[in-house]
């Protein structure tokens, strides 16, 4: 179960690009995943504990306030605390201004997953456990690829070396320089030698009667490993693109029909010129009707309200369109 919880937090950190994610029980940090240094981590844990403590005081001012979340932001910084249960909170820190809606959504997803874990309040992770989980969750190294490519580069170096040696020998002997073999020929010769050596080794190792498996040529191996490397690179690229696409999809767009409603309300207050002003404001604000976001609508409403001179009408317009949101 601990491993599961660890993975949930790791997922949250990766999905939100947070620099710090932590599980706090009461005010104690129980599981923290961070890119910060150990010293900074301790300080931040301490500060978050204080905030958690202080935020409980809201209940004294507004009884049964039942905090859901706390969000603080600066120019390129944000702190988010999601209260999963009374004594269980998840805290994240972002070293750039994130999209609030995405952060809230990701924390809500995590909260749903861990809310029903009955013994979560009694959980504690020690450093060794976290390190073990970290190791297990790391993708396996593509050592094979690296070796193969290094091997490939090594072979080319060897080819160049041998090629220039032969050239020198021929020149000193005064022989006619014969066009040297290509990479492929060189590798074939090398492969042949290697195959022979491999076969001998295999023959020695194999029990009598068993046939040695055919050893693939070095060229094939190189080809295969390069193909595999390219395939993995493509997979990685696709994965990144998918994550990006998913994130974009999470940012929900508002139905453009809202613009008609806004226009209707605006016409009521300002008259037939409303459509003209609305269109002008839309293009000034670069608002795409098919990719409408809440912020766009709010800015648009704000800008349209400015055009209504009579205060009462302005107020009425804001109230009406407010309901639409």
């Amino acid at each position, binding site marked *: 179960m601990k491993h599961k919880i660890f993975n949930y937090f790791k997922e949250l950190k990766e999905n939100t690009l947070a620099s710090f994610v932590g599980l706090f029980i009461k005010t104690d940090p129980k599981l923290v995943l961070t890119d910060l240094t150990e010293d*900074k981590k301790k300080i931040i844990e301490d500060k978050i504990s204080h*905030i958690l403590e*202080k*935020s409980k005081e809201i209940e004294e001012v*507004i009884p049964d306030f039942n*905090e*859901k979340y706390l969000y603080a932001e*600066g120019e390129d*910084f944000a702190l988010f605390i999601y209260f999963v249960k009374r004594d269980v909170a998840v805290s994240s820190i972002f070293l750039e201004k994130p999209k609030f809606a995405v952060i809230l959504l990701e924390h809500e997803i995590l909260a749903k997953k861990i809310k029903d874990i009955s013994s979560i309040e009694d959980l504690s992770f020690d450093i060794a456990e976290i390190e073990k989980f970290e190791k297990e969750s790391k993708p396996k190294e593509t050592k094979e690829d690296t070796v193969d490519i290094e091997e490939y580069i090594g072979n080319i170096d060897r080819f160049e070396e041998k090629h220039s040696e032969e050239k020198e020998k021929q020149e000193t002997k005064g022989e006619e320089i014969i066009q040297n073999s290509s990479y492929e020929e060189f590798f074939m010769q090398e492969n042949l030698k290697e195959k022979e050596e491999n076969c001998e080794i295999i023959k020695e190792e194999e029990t009598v009667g068993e046939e040695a498996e055919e050893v693939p040529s070095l060229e094939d191996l190189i080809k295969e490993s390069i193909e595999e490397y390219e395939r993995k690179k493509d997979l990685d690229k696709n994965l990144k693109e998918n994550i990006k696409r998913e994130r974009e999809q999470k940012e929900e767009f508002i139905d453009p029909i809202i613009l008609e409603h806004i226009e209707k309300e605006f016409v009521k207050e300002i008259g037939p010129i409303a459509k003209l002003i609305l269109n002008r404001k839309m293009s000034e604000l670069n608002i795409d009707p098919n990719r409408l976001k809440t912020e766009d609508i709010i800015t648009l409403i704000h800008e349209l309200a400015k055009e209504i001179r009579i205060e009462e009408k302005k107020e009425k317009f804001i109230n009406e369109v407010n309901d639409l*949101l």
Partner: protein
Amino acid sequence: MARNFNEVLNTVIRDSGAEGAVLVSPDGLAIASVLPANVDEDRVAAMGAAILSLGERVATELDKGELEQLYVKGTKGYMIFTGIKDLAVLGVLAPADAKLGLLLMEIKRAAKQIEELLG
């Protein structure tokens, strides 16, 4: 001056659908407020300044400068604290069904007006 502040607070309440607002000095003392009768002005002021300053300390530790805004959401509504440079803190209480986007926009506008008044 206090009358001007009250006007700004009343406007932000009216335009955003908030329940109350309070303007707090950096040391946590209320400068002006328009709050529901059952809410203690001094406690809201002190609590807002305290939480905001704790958040600011986190930002400072990470060399991220000033904290602009902090909001706490509960089942009963929102408490939003906005730093107005180092001059004051504007606290707004809003019901749970308030439109957060609109609320934040109105608060931003009010904060600008208060900054002009204080500056």
